[in-house]
C-alpha cells in the first residue's frame, strides 16, 4: 500500500504547478472568488484559459493524442485537475459539464466522425457544452424524459423542454437525452444526441437561482431539425449511455471536489483567525474549533476515499462499488462546512454585497447558498442512497416501482 505519488508523478505535478504559475490570466485575482462581472466574461475567461492549457499540453491527459488528448494515464489527468481546482476553480467551472460529461460521452460512446469532429474543438477551448437531461417532470425520475425526437428521413424533429441546464447560455453544443420511442418501457425508448445550440428552434431562457445568479437555464425546442449523424449510439441506447458515462466520470469528479474543498479549509482557518466573537478570534472558541476540525476531517475522508476509489479503478479498469458514495462524501459535508463558516460570522454573516464589513469577499454567503444545490444536482442524495441500497447492498425495490415493471 502506498499513498504517495511516484517520483515521476511528483515531478510531473511540480512541472505543472510551475507552468500554471506562469500561465494564469493576468486579470485573474486569486484573492477574489469571483473575478468576472458577467456570465459572458466568465465564459470567455474559461475558453481563453482552456486554450492555454491545450497549447501547454495540459488538458485531457488520459485521452489519445489523435483526438487532442495527451496520451498519458488517468493519474496525470487527476494531478492536473486537482491542481487546477485547488488553484483556480473559477476558471474551470464553466467547463465542468463539457469536460466531465460531454468529453467522456463522445470519447467512450461516440463514433469516429463524432470524436474527430468535436473533441479537438472542445479541448482547445473553442466550444463549451451543456447537458440537457432534466425536465420539469423528469428530475430525480430521469427515465421520465418526454422531450420527443421524431424521425423524418435522415433527420429527427425535436420538441419539448429541458430545465436546470447549466451554462446553456454560454454553450455551443448540448448533450441531449430525448424520447425516440414512446411505445416501449420508459428507459428503453430514450436516445442520446449532440445538439448544435445555434439550430433554429432552440431557445435558452436563464433561470435565477437562490444565489441571485443565473447559472442554469430552461431550454425550449420547437421543431428543431437534428441530422441523424448527431445521434450517439443506436436508437434506444440513450439511458445506458447516460448512466455508463456518469459512472466512469464520478471518480474523477470526486477527486476534483476533494482538492477544491481542501482549499476551503485554508479559507476557513483565515476566517476563524480574523473573525471575532466576544472580542477574541473565533479560532479560540472550543465549539468552533470542533467544527473546523470536523470540516477538515470530512475533507480528508473525501480525499482519501477518492484516492482509494481512483486507485481501484486504475487497477481494475472498472469503477468499484465504493466509488458510488463519493458524491455523498462531498455534497453533504460541503453543506455542513459552509454552514459552520456562516455560524462563525455571527450577525455579519448576513452581509453579502460589498461593504467595509464584508467578510472574505462574500465567499461563504455565496457558497452556503450554492451548496444547497449540491445534494440535488447530478443525482440527489435520495437517489444515490436508493442506488447504494439496491445495487450495492441488494435491497429490494419498493413495491410501486416493482409493480410498474
Amino acid at each position, binding site marked *: *500500500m*502506498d*499513498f*504517495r*505519488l*511516484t517520483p515521476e*508523478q511528483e515531478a510531473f505535478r511540480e512541472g505543472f504547478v510551475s507552468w500554471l504559475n506562469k500561465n494564469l490570466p493576468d486579470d485573474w485575482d486569486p484573492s477574489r472568488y469571483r473575478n468576472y462581472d458577467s456570465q459572458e466574461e466568465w465564459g470567455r475567461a474559461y475558453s481563453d484559459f482552456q486554450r492555454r492549457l491545450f497549447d501547454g499540453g495540459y488538458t485531457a491527459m488520459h485521452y489519445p493524442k489523435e483526438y487532442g488528448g495527451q496520451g498519458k494515464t488517468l*493519474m496525470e489527468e487527476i494531478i492536473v485537475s486537482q491542481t487546477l481546482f485547488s488553484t483556480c476553480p473559477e476558471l474551470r467551472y464553466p467547463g465542468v459539464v463539457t469536460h466531465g460529461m460531454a468529453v467522456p460521452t463522445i470519447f467512450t460512446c461516440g463514433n469516429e466522425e463524432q470524436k474527430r469532429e468535436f473533441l479537438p474543438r472542445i479541448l482547445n477551448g473553442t466550444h463549451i457544452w451543456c447537458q440537457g437531461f432534466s425536465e420539469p417532470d423528469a428530475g430525480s425520475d430521469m427515465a421520465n424524459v418526454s422531450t420527443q425526437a421524431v424521425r423524418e428521413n435522415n433527420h429527427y424533429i425535436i420538441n419539448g423542454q429541458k430545465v436546470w441546464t447549466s451554462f446553456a447560455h454560454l454553450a455551443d453544443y448540448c448533450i441531449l437525452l430525448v424520447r425516440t420511442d414512446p411505445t416501449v418501457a420508459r428507459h428503453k425508448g430514450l436516445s442520446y444526441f449532440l445538439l448544435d445550440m445555434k439550430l433554429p428552434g432552440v431557445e435558452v431562457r436563464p433561470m435565477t437561482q437562490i444565489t441571485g445568479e443565473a447559472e442554469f437555464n430552461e431550454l425550449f425546442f420547437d421543431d428543431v431539425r437534428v441530422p441523424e449523424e448527431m445521434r450517439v449510439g443506436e436508437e434506444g441506447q440513450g439511458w445506458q449511455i447516460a448512466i455508463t458515462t456518469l459512472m466512469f466520470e464520478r471518480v474523477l469528479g470526486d477527486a476534483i471536489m476533494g482538492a477544491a474543498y481542501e482549499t476551503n*479549509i485554508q479559507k476557513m*482557518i483565515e476566517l*476563524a*483567525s480574523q473573525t471575532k466573537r466576544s472580542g477574541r478570534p473565533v*479560532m479560540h472558541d*472550543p465549539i468552533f*474549533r*470542533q467544527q*473546523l*476540525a*470536523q470540516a*477538515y*476531517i470530512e475533507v*480528508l*475522508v473525501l480525499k*482519501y*476515499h477518492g*484516492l*482509494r476509489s*481512483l*486507485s*481501484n479503478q486504475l*487497477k481494475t479498469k472498472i469503477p468499484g*462499488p*465504493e466509488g458510488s*458514495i463519493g458524491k*455523498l*462524501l462531498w455534497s453533504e459535508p460541503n453543506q455542513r462546512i459552509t454552514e459552520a463558516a456562516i455560524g462563525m460570522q455571527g450577525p455579519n454573516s448576513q452581509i453579502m454585497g460589498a461593504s467595509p464589513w464584508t467578510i472574505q469577499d462574500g465567499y461563504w454567503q455565496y457558497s452556503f447558498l450554492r451548496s444547497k444545490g449540491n445534494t440535488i444536482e447530478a443525482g440527489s442524495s*435520495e437517489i*444515490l*442512497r*436508493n442506488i*447504494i*441500497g*439496491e445495487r*450495492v*447492498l*441488494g*435491497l*429490494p*425495490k*419498493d*413495491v410501486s416501482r*416493482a409493480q410498474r415493471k
Partner: protein
Amino acid sequence: MDIALDKVQMDIAKEARRFLDKECPTDYAREMFEDERGFTDEIWAKMVDMDWMRVRIPEPYGGMGMDQIDLTVVLEEMGRAVLPGPFFSTVLLAAEAIMEAGSDSQKERYLSGIAAGEIKGTLALHEPDGGADLGFIQMEARADGDGFVLEGTKLSVPDAHVADFLVCAACTKAGNDPAQGITLFMVDLSADGVSVSLLSTMDGTRKLCAVDFKGVRVSPEAVLGEPHKGWEPLRRVLQRAQVGLCAECVGGAQRAMEIATEYAKIRVQFDQPIGAFQAIKHRCAQMYVEVESSRSILYWAAWAQDYGDPKEAALAASVAKAYCSEAFTHVSTGVIQVLGGTGFAWENDAHLYLKRAKANEQALGDPIYHREQVAQLLTG
C-alpha cells in the same frame, strides 16, 4: 500510489475470517461477556498459533516485523467477531510501548514472551480526573534512592486482571506539560502495593480495571525509555493503538451493516420486505457510506504510522479515531433501529456491536479530544 491490500494482506484477512468464524463466533463473545477472565486459554493458544502475537514484533525477538497495515487486516476481523480477551491490551498497548521505548534487555524479556504467547501486558493511562484527556497524567512517581515509588489510581486499564505486567505512565516532574515530566514504568502486577479490581462495564467483551498503586517501589531498571521523556514515545504508541481501535471499528461496523441489510431483506411488514421502504433503505445505504469511507481513512492512518512523517502520522491517527469510532456508533445504533424489537433483545447480536462501538469511541481519546488534536495540528 496503490491503495489496496496486497495478496499477503488479503490472505491474512481470509485466514483470520476463517479462524474467527470457526473458533470465535459471537457465542464465544457472549460466553466471555459473562466470564470474569474474559477469554479461554484454549483460544489464546490457538491465536498464538495463528502468529497474531508476532505480527509487529521485530524478528530478533521472535516476531515478524510487519507493518501497522498488516495488523490492521487482522484487527478488522477481530472487530467483526467482537473478539474478547487481552489481545488488544497485550499486542497494541504493552508490546508497542516496549518496541517504542524499551531497552534491549526489556525487549528481549518482554517481546519474546509476548511473541511466544507466554505473557500478557497492558497500559495504565487514564486517571479519575482526566476524563478523555490523554495528556492528563498526574499520578506521582516519586524518586526514592535510585528507584521510584508509585502512588495513585489508574482507571479503565484494559485486562489488568489477567495481565502479568503493565506499562504505567506517571508524573516524575511537576508541571502541566506532559512532554517534560512523564515517565513510563514497567510494573509487575504481582508487585507489593498493586491491587487490581475488575470493573463491571457496559461492554463485557472488553474488560476494564481500576488499578491502585500504594507505595509501589520500582527499580531504575523498570523505567521504560528515558526518565521524564515518556510522553513522545507514549504518544506514538497511542497513535498506533488508536488506529488499531479504528480497525476494530471498521470490521465491527461492516458486520453490523450486514446484519441490518440481511434482516431488511427478509423481514416483511405491510406486505413487503422492510428494505424496500426508503426509510430503511436509506439508513442501510448510509451505513455503507460510513463503513467504506471509514475504511479509506483507516488505511491512510495505518499506512501513515509507518510511512508518513510524524505530523501526518499524528493527524491521521486523530482523524481516523474521531471519524471511524463515530461511524461505528452510528452504524451499530442504526442496526438496532432497523431490527426493531429484535435488535433490542439480548439474544440478538446487535447490542454486542453497539457496546463495543461505545467502548472504542471513548477509549484512547474520545472524538472531542481528537478533533481538538486535529484543530491544533491544522492551525499550528
